């Protein structure tokens, strides 16, 4: 029996999205291969790893994950710089403090903070609102305006609030995170709506990342299918890169909070699973896992 390696090539290619501007920009997407299939073609860009920063002093973070940042958690800019020193490709700021059910910080304060960070940080920035779809309109619009031209990646936008935020994002030259609740049809529907306001090179998909044991298989399969639809079947409305905001999901569960080593694995195993499924940005909390995942991505593991 003669063996012939079953290599495949694909017609679809992901859109390339640039986050940040000038020297400190990073690019994601652009590849026409399946995740980690470097044996079937070169990838324009590989997955990048972001570390998470919040504006709420790491409230609710377990001690063993907040540890490396203990002295800087009340200064988001210093915290963001520490993330970069510890090997992150970019920083993901969560505006937890704007949550109306929490400290309910005003939009202007959040926008000023983001401006301060982009001004002082030599790296691109992802900005997540608190997830309250009404408050996020206010906050994310203010952030987009305050940071005009910085080309942030801003989100999440959902079907209830995408229009106003997408307008501000488009007018001020940023990229947007389209978030849908683990459903490939809703994901495509939101992409199609957003494409009326923004070019595909400005959109990143967030199909929601669930932690290992808490629905991870759904996120895994949605990402895997999204990537197949985009790359194998060439569906233009599904060719945006994917962000997996998984660190916070992993570290909030009991199994991760109860034991440091178990927490590290909860995050890294969720991350490698979603990397294999097709993530282009992994958002993590622990810097050791950031280094580990970068080894996997760069072919050093």
């Amino acid at each position, binding site marked *: *029996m003669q*063996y*012939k*390696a*079953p*290599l*495949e090539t694909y017609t679809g290619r992901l859109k390339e999205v640039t986050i940040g501007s000038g020297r400190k920009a990073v690019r994601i997407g652009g590849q026409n291969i399946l995740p*980690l*299939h*470097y*044996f079937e073609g070169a990838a324009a860009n590989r997955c990048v790893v972001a570390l998470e920063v919040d504006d709420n002093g790491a409230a609710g973070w377990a001690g063993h994950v907040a540890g490396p940042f203990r002295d800087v958690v009340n200064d988001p800019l210093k915290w963001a710089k520490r993330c970069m020193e510890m090997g992150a490709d970019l920083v993901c700021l969560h505006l937890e403090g704007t949550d109306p*059910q929490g400290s309910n910080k005003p939009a202007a304060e959040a926008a000023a903070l983001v401006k301060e960070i982009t001004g002082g940080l030599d790296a691109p920035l992802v900005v997540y609102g608190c*997830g309250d779809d009404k408050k996020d309109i206010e906050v994310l619009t203010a952030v987009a305006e305050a940071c005009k031209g910085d080309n942030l990646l801003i989100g999440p936008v959902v079907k209830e609030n995408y229009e106003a935020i997408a307008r501000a994002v488009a007018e001020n030259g940023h990229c947007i995170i389209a978030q849908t609740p683990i459903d490939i049809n809703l994901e495509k529907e939101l992409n199609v709506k957003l494409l009326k306001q923004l070019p595909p090179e400005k959109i990143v998909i967030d199909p929601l990342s*669930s932690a*290992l*044991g*808490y*629905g*991870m*298989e*759904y996120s*895994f*399969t949605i990402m*895997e*299918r999204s990537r*197949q639809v985009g790359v194998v079947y060439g569906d233009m409305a599904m060719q945006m890169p994917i962000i997996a905001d998984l660190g916070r999901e992993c570290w*909030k*569960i*009991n*199994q991760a909070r109860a*034991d440091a*080593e*178990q927490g*590290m*694995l*909860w995050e*890294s*195993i969720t991350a*490698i*699973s979603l990397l*294999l*499924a097709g993530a282009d940005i992994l958002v993590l909390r622990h810097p*050791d896992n950031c280094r*580990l*995942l970068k*080894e*996997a991505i760069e*072919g*050093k*593991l």
Partner: protein
Amino acid sequence: MAIKGTEIVKRLPEGGKKNCKECGLPTCFAFAMKLASGGIAVEKCPYISPEVSRELEDALAPPIRPVTIGRGACALVVGDETVLYRHEKTFVHQPGIGVLIADDELGEVVEDKIRKLRELHFSWVGKTLRADLLALQYKSGDPAKYGAMVKKALTAADCPLMLICEDTDTLLNAHALCEGRKPVLYPVTAQNLEKVISAVKQNPAVVAVKGAGVESLVHLTSRLKEAGIEDVLLDPGSKDLQSAVRDQTLIRRAALKQGFRALGYPTVAFPCFMTADKRREMLLAAMFIPKYAAVIVLSDIDEHTLLPLLVQRLNIYTDPRIPMAMEEKVYPINNPNAGSPVLITTNWALTYFIVASEVEASKVPAWLCVKESGGLGVLTAWAAGKFSGDNIAPFIRKCGVEGMVNHRRLVIPGKVARIRNELSEALPDWQIIVGPGDANEIPAYLPALVKSWKG
């Protein structure tokens, strides 16, 4: 590659027109259709020629052969997978997780590893998770020592065994000790292939072939098949994560998409030999779970590192066509008492996890009633008629919650606010309270609710 009934019928006696009925079916065509669907054995046809019979058996065999390691209740079945991606159907046989024990390790380390393999287990969504096999490695240079360790493992545990030994005589001596246990023999290469074949013909074992790259495995498995040995595992010898993704993908594709028989076997992976660092090892193991390995050998296991890997294995091998469902019952959260609030939701595992974790985060002790609803979320269960007043009421009566609390106040999900009236009618002694529409509002909602009762 699956073969169609219409193809099979042409190969039957007299071109499928004999219709002797001796197989018990009315026509050759019916027999062919039944063969194609796996409902009858080829030898039921008394007139089929041996060549055609062999050919058909080959064509009808599963594209990735199922392989059983070990014996009895602990036996591990791997392989028989039919898809590259779980969403195409489902992955079927979870990979076996092995623990490596070298014969130069201290006696107490060896015993501890055997103990951990036997005893470590976890409950997760009503399932028991545990590791599966012991991998015994010859490293000491003293065959007697290796033999003694193999004997110890044989008596201490009934689990499947893998013998890892580069010295052929020592490997085959250990294999002889394992008579009746059907261990895995590794590594089998061109050097020891013939000796292994004659030993395995005497005393069944699973042959794990090792090559340098995918293609190098082909002549090994072809020779084994020629010798009638098909309980085979493949190790392409991948050195790192990305070449492992490549090799595993190529093997799976060759078997499923090309119908390439020589690679139609489950694979074995050794994160334990790829790195000396525990976290890196676990990350490699976690890559091998979605990327097709059927047996994964780790250098060691412990409570905290094993659980996440077993949960990942469960997640990836869960059938995506069947929603994960929780057992119907009342779940206590944060140590509730008779005065604590009672909430109700559906039994989709994801719904339960989200609601339970938000209740937990609220720090309010509460009783969470999980009603059987076909593994659906709240709205879909309501739409399917599985979460409505007339079926929630009997559940509340029989689930025992009425004996657990001294009040009659029930919080229902805000998404089904519309069932409030029908539920009030069905449960006249209960006050029905409409809770938040989104679980993430629970941490703010519950403390306020409890406070309002006290005030």
